[in-house]
Structure formats: structure tokens, C-alpha cells
């Protein structure tokens, strides 16, 4: 097994407690930052490490931080994205549950680097237990003065608050998350202004995914060069792949970024469940365009998947065996996005439902010859036209399902 960064403490007894975390060398990285690093050098180290956001877009983390102005007349904020709504994704949940202090230390490092004194962890509403765990962890830190004023006697102050979502996928979109944190209806904001300049409470805001932040303590302790040695040059470090579907051993797997999908499925996860044949793989959460069984000999990293017209997304790998109906999956996918659209943009509000209705009509044997092509055209009208990418997230997989499995749709249409 390769080196573990984010999940290394998961197997330990009571790993969620501060005592366990301290035994594993916890909170040394933040102390190292506070004593040995200037904030800028933390940013430089993270830039050098090549760490990319694990939420979905894979944006370089250090670069994102550097967009935030050094001096600001209003408070700056860190919003931690633990909304984890992408179907097929369940990695952040385990970090919150098994190693909350790793996340808290990551938050401390990020806040120190960017000059932030208040951070919010926005946690998916369904994650009740995880919220309790993270709140206890925050309290443990406060009791030890690892959080609060003048932490570790460094002069740096930081408060972290946990905030529960209310069950809306769209609040995982970073500006939707900000709106929700502010107490508003969760719907994405028009950009510009970008959050780095004016985000939460009009302050410059960094939004980082839980897993992204959990990488930071080891990057500080072991250095950027060490981090770069894992994974591939432009996709450094490890990634938690959440594997689900028709797979023998579903679960989360922390592996070097860029692991081959074939290796992951057959060698690591024990192949397809029930001895069936592989039909397709959704490689990065539900919004990632599907790969056919022929396409899976590919590294699961941001650039390789984007090259073949899909995306690494959130790292949720959904395995589909040959007994499954792609039109059924397509309909269920579109249903999900129709249900989750916030409805502010026309294309998304109307398009997601329309596409879902047509898929369902085909599924129910009332499809018409032209329907698949019509969906493709409707989807093309939904792509790249809206405030956020939920519309695209519905259109992209819908188009891929039709283009790659057209025969299955045509077979349902009389």
C-alpha cells in the first residue's frame, strides 16, 4: 500500500479525539508554521507542492490563496466546503468523522497563510453525526487554546465555527455556500466579484474543500518536494477515491493521484461484484461524463480525464455493470439535477426538468425517434450559459449517456 496522507490515522483507536491526534504528532505542523514560516512562505510551499482542490474543479490551492488581497479593511474568511453533495462522493464525511483534528489543523494552516481569523466549516445537513464530532473537536481545541485568541502563544487568533447545511446540493457550489452561510436562500452568486475579493459577508473569502485542507499538515511537515513525489507531476499527492456501485469492495481508497481506473477497479477493489461484466464507469461524481468499459484504461487525475472528455471531479467513482440500464441511470441522473436546481437561471430551471421528463418518457416506452437528438440539443443550450455549473452538471452526463450508449436509448424507442 502506498503512502497515506489524509487517511493515515483512520485505523487508530478513537482517532477523532485530540489525544489520539496528538499521539500521532498532531498540531506540530501549525506550530511549525507559526514559528518558522511567514504566511507568504506557507503559500509558496503550498504552491510548490502542486496541491489542487479536491472538491471538483482541481484548481491550484496556493494560487487560489494568492488571489486574496494581503491587506483588507474588512475581515477575511475561510469557508470550508464540507457540503459533499455530489452523488457517489463520500470521502469528506470520513475525514470529518475519523480525523476532525487533521481538518482543523489544515484550517489553521490555511488561515495563517492567508491572514484569516474566522473560518466556517459548512457541513452537509444530512451529516448530523459528523457535525457533532467536529463541534466536539473544535471544543477540544478551544479548551487547549489551540483555537481562540493568541493560539499557541503566537499572537495569531483564530475562531472556527461549524455550520450545518439544510439539504441542498447547490450549497456545495462555492457562492451558493456563501449565500447559505449568510442565512440567505442558497443560490449561486453572479461573478464577478469573485469570492477572493468579496465573498462571505462581503469580505475576501477562500473556499476550500475538506480533503484539500487535510493535506496541508503533511505538506508543511514533510515539504513540497515530498508531496510532489507522490502522484504525477501536475496531479501531485494522493486522492481519496470513493468507489461505489457494482463493485466487489466499495469504499474509500486513498491512492496516489493518477491511479489507473482499471487498476483501481480490478486490482484494488476486487473487480465487478457478482462476477458480472463492466459496462461503464462514472469517474468523478455524478456530473462527470460516463466512460465506457473500453475507456477505463486511464489515469484518474484531473488532466487525463479532462483530455478524454470527462472529469476527475470529486473523486467519486461509480461502477456500472452490464446488467444495468443506462437510460434508467440517465433518467435518475437528470431527476437529481432537476430536483437540485436552485432555479434562478432559465436554462437550468427549465432545462433540467425538461431533460428529465424526456428521459423518463423514453424509459416508459413513450419515446420518439427524435428524442435522443433533441436531448443533445437541449443540453447544448444548457452548457456554459448559466451563473453556476449545475446546468452543465446535468447536461454533460446526459449527453455522454446518449452519445456513448445510443443503442440502449434507441432500443426503447419503438
Amino acid at each position, binding site marked *: 500500500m502506498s503512502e497515506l496522507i489524509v487517511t493515515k490515522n483512520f485505523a487508530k483507536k478513537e482517532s477523532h479525539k485530540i489525544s489520539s491526534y496528538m499521539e500521532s504528532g498532531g498540531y506540530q505542523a501549525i506550530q511549525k508554521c507559526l514559528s518558522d514560516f511567514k504566511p507568504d512562505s506557507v503559500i509558496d510551499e503550498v504552491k510548490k507542492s502542486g496541491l489542487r482542490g479536491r472538491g471538483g474543479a482541481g484548481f491550484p490551492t496556493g494560487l487560489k490563496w494568492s488571489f486574496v488581497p494581503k491587506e483588507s479593511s474588512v475581515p477575511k474568511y475561510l469557508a470550508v466546503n464540507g457540503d459533499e453533495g455530489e452523488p457517489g462522493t463520500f470521502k469528506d464525511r470520513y475525514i470529518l468523522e475519523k480525523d476532525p483534528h487533521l481538518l482543523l489543523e489544515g484550517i489553521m494552516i490555511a488561515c495563517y497563510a492567508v491572514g484569516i481569523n474566522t473560518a466556517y466549516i459548512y457541513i452537509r445537513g444530512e451529516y448530523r453525526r459528523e457535525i457533532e464530532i467536529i463541534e466536539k473537536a473544535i471544543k477540544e481545541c478551544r479548551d487547549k487554546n489551540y483555537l481562540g485568541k493568541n493560539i499557541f502563544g503566537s499572537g495569531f487568533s483564530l475562531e472556527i465555527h461549524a455550520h450545518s447545511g439544510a439539504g*441542498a446540493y*447547490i450549497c456545495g457550489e462555492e457562492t451558493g455556500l456563501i449565500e447559505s452561510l449568510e442565512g440567505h*436562500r442558497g443560490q449561486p452568486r*453572479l461573478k464577478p466579484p469573485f469570492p477572493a475579493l468579496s465573498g462571505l459577508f462581503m469580505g475576501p473569502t477562500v473556499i476550500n474543500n475538506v480533503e484539500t485542507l487535510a493535506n496541508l499538515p503533511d505538506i508543511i511537515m514533510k515539504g513540497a518536494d515530498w508531496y510532489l513525489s507522490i502522484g504525477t507531476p501536475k496531479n501531485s499527492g494522493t486522492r481519496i477515491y470513493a468507489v461505489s456501485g457494482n463493485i466487489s469492495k466499495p469504499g474509500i481508497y486513498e491512492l496516489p493521484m493518477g491511479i489507473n481506473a482499471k487498476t483501481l477497479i480490478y486490482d484494488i477493489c476486487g473487480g465487478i461484484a457478482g462476477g458480472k461484466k463492466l459496462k461503464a464507469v462514472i469517474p468523478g461524481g455524478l456530473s462527470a461524463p460516463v466512460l465506457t468499459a473500453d475507456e477505463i484504461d486511464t489515469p484518474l487525475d484531473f488532466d487525463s480525464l479532462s483530455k478524454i472528455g470527462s472529469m476527475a471531479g470529486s473523486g467519486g467513482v461509480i461502477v456500472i455493470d452490464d446488467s444495468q440500464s443506462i437510460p434508467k441511470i440517465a433518467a435518475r441522473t437528470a431527476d437529481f439535477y*432537476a*430536483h*437540485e*436546481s*436552485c*432555479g*434562478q*437561471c*432559465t*436554462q*437550468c*430551471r*427549465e*432545462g*433540467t*426538468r*425538461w431533460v428529465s*421528463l*424526456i428521459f423518463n*418518457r423514453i424509459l416508459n416506452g413513450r419515446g*420518439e425517434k427524435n428524442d435522443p437528438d*433533441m436531448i443533445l440539443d437541449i443540453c447544448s*443550450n444548457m452548457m*456554459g*450559459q*448559466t*451563473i453556476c455549473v449545475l446546468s452543465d452538471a446535468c447536461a454533460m452526463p446526459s449527453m455522454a449517456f446518449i452519445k456513448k450508449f445510443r443503442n440502449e436509448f434507441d432500443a426503447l424507442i419503438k
Partner: protein
Amino acid sequence: MAKIFIDNNEIEIIPGDTIIKAAARAGIEIPHFCYHPELQYAGSCRMCLVEVEKSPKLLTACSTMATDGMIVRTKTERVKKAREAVLEFLLINHPLDCPICDKAGECPLQNNYYKYSGKDSRYKENKWQKSKKVDLGPTIVHDQERCILCTRCVRFMDAVAKSPQLVVAKRGHKNILTTYPGQPLDNPYSLNTVDLCPVGALTSKDFRFKCRTWFLKSSKSLCAFCATGCNTIVQHKDNYIHRILPDKNDSINGSFMCDYGRLYRKFLHAESRIYSPALIQNGRFHEEQYQKAIDAAASKINGAVKKDGAASIGVIISPYLSIEEAYVAARWLSDSIVTPNIAVVNYENGFNDFKYSDNYLVSEDKSPNKAGVGEILKSFKKSAITVEQLAKTAASGRLKCFVFIGPAIGLNEIFKIYEADFKKCESKIAISTHNENFAAIADILIPFRMWLETSGHYVNKKGISQSYRPAVAFKNNEIKENIEILCDLASKTGAKIHFTSAAAVFEQINSRLGLYKPLKAGVIA
């Protein structure tokens, strides 16, 4: 000077310009729904998508700042397809009940569809059904199915009316515009949302199902509800006013007006309107010819003056009079009937249900021309007393005759207190609009036109004079214009005043008193 290029047109830009603003100044139309020049942009309807060089995606013209050298294209195939797509999406769940929709004929959704798409819908599914008549409050009924969720109304209530009573609830295609649970939409600016609505979703209870918009004729006018003097567009058919809308005037009311002003049309069409002169003897009402009524009034006045002197005459002037009407009255009161008993009605604190005021458009003073009437009287060195003071004189029996001039609007409350006092006068003459209060006890009644039926100038509380012209005709064309009525009465009672139009009076006000410079013809304020 910084400039941008839209479809190869060079357009100078000013700081703060978005693409759509710069385009509008140059006369280039970029279709839109959620954008409105008076509101913060939302960028959500996506109808204004345009191509901007160097941008891989289409950008919303409403929210994209214009920067020097920017090259914008609005007529490419890509833009055309995006617009057609938005229109198709908007219409799939739209009920398309245009034949019974009040907005038809002035509907941006209808107009943009015909102009930018015109294609048949490919939608074969059932439309998502919502409520078609939600009572949002005293003024508005909401059709949720027609609503395209542009949020113009929400943003208006938040930012302009400063009363966030409207919200979007639920999500996705289930989204509905609504109020907070149990709360009505009852802000006095609520009806602006009906104008802002780019579809027929928000309908005015006062106007819905009353008239197809294409039958309406529009006349520019003023609002007489209060001393703000909002500019209006009066819409009418067959001399009946169906709707009053705000007209843009940035130095007075911007693009909006209050609900009171819009619904003020009801006073014009009230059942108590007076259209014929009448003599009332022993409680019996005789319609009379105009000339005979004037003669009767003059003889009463002349008789009282002869017997008890001019001071036995009390004149009540309404601040609804135009400066021209006030001028004729003031000259009469200087040239022949020189009485100290000149009262000007005070509407300072409103009347009846109209006591609301705020710091936005609704003034405390609920009269349109207090400033103008006051200034005219002042220039004739006349000092006015109050109706209360005049009532005391009447109570003492020293007032033999009162002449009420102007609309008998909003006086019932105060009149009730002094009714008995004014009834003591031997002669009661009302040149008025409604058969109420002073007019109701008069024994000589001469009809008077309301401002929407005649011409003149009002001076608002800021001292801005604005002209108005008739929007609708007075129902009885045998009755002379207000100015002529006042001239006729003055001439028959010893003064030599002769004007045939308000314009001629205005000229004299300007040349003799040096007040109120004339504006270019046809320009209001």
C-alpha cells in the same frame, strides 16, 4: 474617451457602464427580462447573453462592465441560438394564456419571442402547474404559472420600496414568487411591481381584465395626489381612465410612483361628480343652464356686497387650483371683491384613508399646488386664513355668502365639524367637482374640471412648476373651461378679467409677476 464596439458601432462609455447600458444609449437593443435600468442587475434570466471577444463563454450584457476597447457582438449565430434557447425554455412551462392575459400587447416575453425566435416549441410534456390566482394583498393578484422568476419585483421591494415583502420560495422549476407566510404584500409602492413584471404574473386588482392594453390611449400628465408632483402617463379609452402609470422624471419621481396616485383615478370617475350647473332651492335640485347659474351666483354675491360689504363674502380656495386658476381668483379678489375672508384648504396631514407619508415619494401635504396657490396669493398681497378661521366668522353670522372654488375632495372630515356654521350663510356657492361637503350644501352649483380634464400648471413642494394638459374630455362640453368660469363670475361681479385659456393666463403671470418661466411646448417640468 474610453469606448467599446458593439456590432462594429463605436460607443463612448462612461464609468459604471455595463454593456447593456452602453448599448441602450447608442440605441442598440439587447433583449432582456430580469434586467431593469432602475434595479440592481440579477443576471439570471440569461436573455442578454452576448459574445465578447476574448471571452470563451457568452456573457450577460446586464452585468458585464464595459471596458475600453471591448468588442461585443450581439448578432452572431451563437447569440441568436442562445436567445432562442432562453425563449424556448421560458415558454415550456409558461401557460401561453395570452388571449386572457392583461399583459398581452405590452408583454416583453411575447414581444421578444416574436422578435427573437418565433419558433415552435419542441416541448411535448405536461406543463408544470402552479396557482393562477394568488391574492398577494390589497392591490395585487399573482399568477404563478406566468411568472418567469426574473425577481424584478423582489429587487424592487428590497431596494426601492425598502420593504422586502416578496421572496422566491422552493427551488428549481417549483420556484414560486410569494410573500412571507401570512404576510400580505401591502406596501404603498406595490403596484410598481406590476409595471416591472415582464409577463402578466403580477396583475393589478384595479386593472386586471378591465381593458386590452392596445385599446388604451396614453396622455402625459401629473399626479395630483400629493405635493410631490410625480409625472404620469394616463391611459384611457372612451374618456374613461383605466390606468395611471409613472412617467420617468429623474428630478421628481424617477421611474416610479405610489399606489395612491395610481388609484386616484377613482376620484375622477366618482359617482358624485358634478357635470351640470344646478340651483338648489328648499332642498330641491334644478339643473340650470350655465349662463343662468353664473348670473344667479353673481347676483347673490353682488347683493351681499351691496348690503353688508365685501367682507361678508368668504372665498374658499382649494390648493388643487392651478396657478392660472388661482391667478384669476386672486385678481378677482383684488379688483372687485376685496374681502379679508380668503381661506385656503389645508391638506397638510392628508385626509380619509390617505394619511400615509414617507421620505420617498408620498408627501405629507396631500395637495398638488399649495406652493403655487400660496405664491400667487402672496404676489397679490393676499394672506389666506384657514377653513377653521373662516368657520368662526360664519358662526358669528358675519359671513353672508361663501364661494367654494375647487375640487370638493377629502374635505368631509373637517367639513362635518363646521357644517352647521357654514350653513348659516345666506348664499352658498360652489364651483366644484363633486357633490360633497361644501358643494353638497350649496344652493348654486357650477361644475369645475379636475386637472385631468383641463390645462394648467402645478408647483410641487420643491418649487418645480409643471404643466399639464387634458388627458380626457370633460363629460359636458357645454360647460366652459375653469378659467372662463372664474372670469365670467369675476366680470359679473365688478372685475374686468377676460381670458379664454390657461395659456393666456400663464403668459400674464409670467409677464406681470415674473413668476414661472414657460417651458418648451410639450415639455413637462
